[in-house]
């Protein structure tokens, strides 16, 4: 972390460099039983570079899942979106540490970051630290983070229409995770959700 000043990270190990006009799509899936450290840094180095990052996690035992995501906007007109959703059950421990840095000359930047978590057991823990460091003024940046549980009203609605509790919960979780489910892996992930 810099101390009040913008520090250009050149020299740091950067995993992905996205040049002018290029687009990078990243997808991560962490299934139950897997403990993972996902450490990504993306450098949007040319004008108009784009990043789309989607990640999903499902924990049901004592997994430890850590996300560390650094997105660096170093050129003007770049765009990044991040969406990380997941469900923490059992005694799992999930951390999300995401940083967006917008360099002084990276005007017209658009950067969005969202992290939504559902705690599905009394002993699971979630820690989320979405961070914005912005040194340019003509930008649109936002982040959002939530930690909560499944919506009681939705659950009640479904149960009053004869859907069993377990199935209703699974449906809610499927809908919660749908925006981050990669193409072609829907069935596999729906099965994993039903196994929670």
């Amino acid at each position, binding site marked *: *972390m*810099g*101390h*009040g*000043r*913008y520090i250009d990270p050149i020299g740091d190990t950067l995993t992905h460099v996205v040049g002018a006009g290029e687009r990078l799509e990243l997808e991560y899936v962490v299934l139950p039983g897997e403990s993972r450290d996902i450490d990504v840094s993306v450098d949007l180095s040319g004008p108009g570079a784009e990043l789309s990052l989607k990640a999903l996690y499902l924990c049901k035992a004592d997994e430890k899942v850590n996300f560390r995501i650094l997105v660096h906007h170093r050129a003007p007109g770049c765009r990044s979106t991040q969406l990380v959703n997941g469900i923490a059950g059992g005694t799992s421990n999930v951390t999300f540490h995401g940083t967006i840095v917008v360099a*002084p000359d990276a*005007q017209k930047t658009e950067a969005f970051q969202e992290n939504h*978590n559902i*705690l*599905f*057991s*009394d002993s*699971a*823990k*979630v*820690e*989320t*630290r*979405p*961070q*914005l*460091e*912005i*040194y*340019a*003024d*003509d*930008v*649109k*940046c*936002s*982040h*959002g*983070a*939530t*930690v*909560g*549980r499944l919506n009681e009203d939705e659950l009640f609605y479904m149960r009053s229409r004869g859907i069993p509790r377990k199935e209703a919960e699974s449906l809610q979780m499927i809908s919660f995770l749908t925006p981050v489910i990669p193409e072609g892996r829907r069935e596999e992930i729906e099965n994993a959700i039903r196994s929670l």
Partner: protein
Amino acid sequence: MPNDIIQEFTKADYKEGFVTDVEQEFIPKGLNEDIVRMISARKEEPEWLLEFRLDALRKWEKMPQPDWAHLDMPEINYQDIIYFAAPKKDKDRPKEIDPKLAETFDKLGIPLKERDVLAGVVAVDAVFDSVSVTTTFRKTLAEKGIIFCSFSEAVKEHPDLVRKYLASVVPASDNYFAALNSAVFSDGSFCYIPKGVRCPMELSSYFRINARGTGQFERTLIVADEDSYVSYMEGCTAPMRDEQQLHAAVVEIIVEKGADVKYSTVQNWYPGDADGKGGILNLVTKRGICKGEGSHLSWTQVETGSAITWKYPSTILKGDFSSSEFYSVAVTNNHQQADTGTKMIHLGRGTKSRIVSKGISAGVSQNSYRGLVRMASGAQNARNYSQCDSLLIGSKCGAHTFPDIRSANPSATVEHEATTSKISEDQLFYCNQRGLDPEEAVGLIVNGYAREVLSRLPMEFAVEAQKLLQVSLEGSVG
């Protein structure tokens, strides 16, 4: 062109920057056991308080200065600071306020004579460098059983209360600056609201730094007993100087069952000149505890001054169904740096908190929001909502958001959202088109942006704060 207007808009005068020419007593520079003993002796303190100070000093000496904040902190030489400065008392009339001091506070708009004030509006504890000059309306408040006096008087007159609550929320070893304060704190305000009493007027403390080469280390302790209510305001200013001066305060608030405390700050320390020379280093620890069931604590702050601000008013929500709010507007301009936010620690069942933070950066300043929301495993059905918006004026400033959310209870809900943007050309154009000049337009937009927070301030403060916002940003529109 618009950049010039912003420039103009942010170059405002600091009208509280004058120095009062008054004879003052100092103790020697530096910090060691002898100095701490000297401060304690000068204040005729009991043995236990001296022990508390010495213990804090020993702890402080072993602690490193924290560097995790997003601040470019200058090296502070703690041996080069005078830790106690007081205006000399007239030996013939020791009870009277020096007219020069009265004049100073008058100039600052703080009336020290009760008859000057509209009946029963605000009671003031005025602190000048290291001592409290006077506390108004003490008698009126005493009739209701409310104790409102300087911290030094409280130590002498209500030692049991002070001893019971001092450092119960912010222990001496809490952090580097709290430890420093615990060792050398000079004066501040003490306030106790008895059971079931609704304080009939706003209470307020006004802090003024005057002497050169000194630091101010005040300590405020507010205790609201069961089912009581108090609204407390704090203001501060300092002269314009080339040197940077240290201000390390501690504020502790204890809110018992069913009590309600509202704490408002308008911080207007000298921010330094346009080149970043001078200004106050404002390194403050403020924390309250909602101890009993259904208690409520609300923080409202408008931060426009100081070269560096390091401040996180926090609440420990211990009592079941207690609630807390944090409303903040932080403005930085020129070379100012602010790292400010809050901590909400949810321990009790059904606790609720709400955070609304609005940062405005202009010039080449850096403005950060840093917050922690923690849901402990016992925080059944607890709820938090945080919103942090940043507004950038000019292309050389920075706006940063560092929230930290930790949840260990599945029934707790935490929501955080943050946005960063600038004043859009469209908004400015709209206003210009309707005959507002760009400066007025920015003033209007900024005030609208901060309105949610400003509307929480007590009336006496709201007007002041609105003006201050405009002045602080003078010369920065674009």
